[in-house]
C-alpha cells in the first residue's frame, strides 16, 4: 500500500469507471500514489490512458467511482481541490499564442494564487531553460519549447500531485533528459507523479510502479522496486536446478529461459542451495528487468 509518512496517499483512484453512452472506456480502475512516488501508465492507443488522466485531473467526470486528491474528492469537493494539482494533459501544451511565455505563466500564476509569482516564474523558466524565449510570443515557440513551457506551467504552483500525459512527446533527446530530471526532482521533493507514456524504457529508471491498461482495465501493476532483483543462473542440469529453486520458499519466481534459469530472490542463498544440491554454477549475472519487453508480453496475453 503506497502511503506517505503520515499514512495518507496524495492521490487515490477508487473503482473509477467511465462510459460514453453504452460504450465502456474505463472499468473499475483503482490505484494510489504516495508522496514522492512516480507511477507510469502504459497501454496501447485506445486503452483509456488519456481518459483516465482527464478523470484524475477533474476535467471529465466518472460514471462511477471517485478520485481523491489529498483526501478531497476532485469532482465533488469544489474547485479549490485543484490547488494541489499540476498537470499537462495534452501534447503539445496549449497557451495563448499572442502572449509571451512569461505572460501566459503570469496569468496561470494569478489563477493559482501563487505567492511571489514573478520570482517563481523566473525560477521555473530558468529550470526549464526557457529564459531566452520567455518574452517572445508563444506562437513563435518550437514544439519542444511549448512542451517545456507546459511543464513549467504544471510545476508553477508547487503542486503535490503532478499529472502528465506523454510529457516527452515531441522533445529532442536533451529535452527528454531535462523532463526526466525535473520529474525526478519533483518526486524527491515529495510530489506524487502520475504520467502516461509509451516510452517505458525511458521512465523505468525512476518509476516506482507501472500500471498497464488494456481495454479500459488496469490489467497489471508492476512494482519496479525489486524488479531488478532477478538473476540469470547458468548451471549444470538447468531443468533440475529450476525444480530445486521452485521448492525454495525465499525464491519468488523462477523460470527457464533457454539453458539459463532466471530467478528472483536472494542470490547468495539461491547459489548455496544449488551447490548443496550438487549443481555446478558457471555464471551468475543480474537479469535487468526489461519493462518494455514485459509490457509487450503482458499486452499480448491480455
Amino acid at each position, binding site marked *: 500500500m503506497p502511503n506517505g509518512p503520515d499514512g495518507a496517499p496524495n492521490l487515490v483512484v477508487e473503482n473509477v469507471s467511465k462510459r460514453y453512452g453504452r460504450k465502456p472506456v474505463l472499468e473499475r480502475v483503482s490505484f494510489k500514489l504516495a508522496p514522492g512516488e512516480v507511477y507510469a501508465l502504459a497501454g496501447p492507443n485506445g486503452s483509456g490512458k488519456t481518459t483516465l488522466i*482527464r478523470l484524475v485531473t477533474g*476535467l471529465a467526470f466518472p460514471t462511477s467511482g471517485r478520485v481523491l486528491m489529498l483526501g478531497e474528492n476532485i469532482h465533488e469537493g*469544489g474547485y479549490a481541490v485543484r490547488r494541489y494539482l499540476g498537470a499537462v*494533459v495534452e501534447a503539445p501544451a496549449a497557451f495563448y499564442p499572442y502572449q509571451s511565455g512569461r505572460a501566459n505563466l503570469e496569468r496561470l500564476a494569478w489563477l493559482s494564487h501563487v505567492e511571489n509569482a514573478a520570482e517563481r516564474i523566473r525560477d521555473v523558466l530558468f529550470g526549464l531553460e526557457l529564459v531566452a524565449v520567455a518574452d517572445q510570443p508563444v506562437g513563435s515557440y518550437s514544439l519542444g519549447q511549448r512542451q517545456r513551457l507546459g511543464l513549467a506551467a504544471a510545476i508553477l504552483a508547487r503542486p503535490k500531485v503532478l499529472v502528465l500525459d506523454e510529457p516527452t512527446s515531441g522533445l529532442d533527446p536533451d529535452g527528454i533528459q531535462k523532463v526526466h530530471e525535473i520529474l525526478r526532482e519533483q518526486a524527491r521533493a515529495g510530489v506524487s507523479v502520475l504520467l502516461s507514456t509509451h516510452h517505458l524504457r525511458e521512465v523505468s529508471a525512476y518509476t516506482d510502479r507501472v500500471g498497464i491498461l488494456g481495454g479500459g482495465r488496469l490489467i497489471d501493476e508492476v512494482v519496479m522496486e525489486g524488479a531488478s532483483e532477478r538473476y540469470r543462473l547458468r548451471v549444470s542440469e538447468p531443468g533440475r536446478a529450476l525444480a530445486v529453486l521452485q521448492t525454495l520458499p525465499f525464491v519468488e519466481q523462477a523460470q527457464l529461459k533457454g539453458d539459463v534459469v532466471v530467478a528472483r530472490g536472494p542470490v547468495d542463498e539461491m547459489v548455496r542451495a544449488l551447490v548443496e544440491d550438487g549443481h555446478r554454477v558457471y555464471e551468475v549475472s543480474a537479469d535487468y528487468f526489461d519493462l518494455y519487453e514485459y509490457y509487450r508480453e503482458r499486452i499480448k496475453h491480455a
Partner: protein
Amino acid sequence: MLRFITWEVVKMLHLRSVRLGLAAAFVLPIIWTLAPGLKQAYGLVLVSGWQVPSLALLAGMEFLYPFLVAMAAAEVLGAEISMGTLKPLLLRPLSRTRFISAKLVAALAYPFLVLATSLLAALLAGLPHGLGGFFGGTGLGAGGFAGVGFLPAGAAFAEVLRAYFYAGLTLLPIAALSLMFTVWFSSTTAAALGAIATVLLMRLLIVFPALKPLLLTTYLDLYLRPGDWVMGLSLLLIYTVGFGLLAVLLFERKDV
C-alpha cells in the same frame, strides 16, 4: 470577478471573428450612405446625418448583426476549445461557474460593442450630411424618416442612442443561446449554426399566432416599436437568463 471579466473581454477582442465582425459593423454604414439604391429600397433621400444610424440598424438587424453576435459568442468559448487552452484553465483552482459566467458577460457585451462600432461609423458617415437639427425624422422615432416637424440635434441623438441600446438588448438572447450551444456541442461552427437556425426557425413559427408573442424574433425590431418595450424586454430577459443559466449548468458537469 471584474478582473476576470476584463480578461475575457480582452481575449474576445483577439478573436478573428470578433475583429471581422467589428470591421463589418464599421464598414456597413459607410457603404450604405454611398449606396445608389437607397431611394428604391427605403424610399429615402438622406437629408441629415442622423438618418444614417437608423439605416445601418435597419439593414444590420435583419441578419448581419444577429449572425455576427452568434458567431462571436460561440467563439468566445469555442476558440479556447480549439486552441486547447480550456483544459489548462480548468486545471487551475478556478470555479467552472465563475469561468463560464465571465465568458457569458463577455459574450453579452459583444452586441453593444458591435452596435457602438456601427453607431460610430454611422455618425462619421453622416457628417457630410450634417449632424445639426433638421426637418424630418431619424427613422427611429415618431413619423419615421418623414418625422413630425423640426428635430433638434439633441433629440435626434437621444432617439438614435435609445434605439441602439434597445437593439443591443434584443441581441442578448442570441449571444446567450450561442454560448449555450457551444457548451453543449463543444464546437464554434455547430453552435453558431445552431443559434442562427433557431432564430430562423422562430421567424418561421409566426404562422402560429399564439406563439408569436413568445418568440424572441418577434422583438428583434423592438427598437422601432416603443409600445412593446415592457413585454418585449421582459421576454428577452427571460430568454437571456434562461439560456445563460443552461450554459452554466451544462458546463458545470461537462467533460472536457
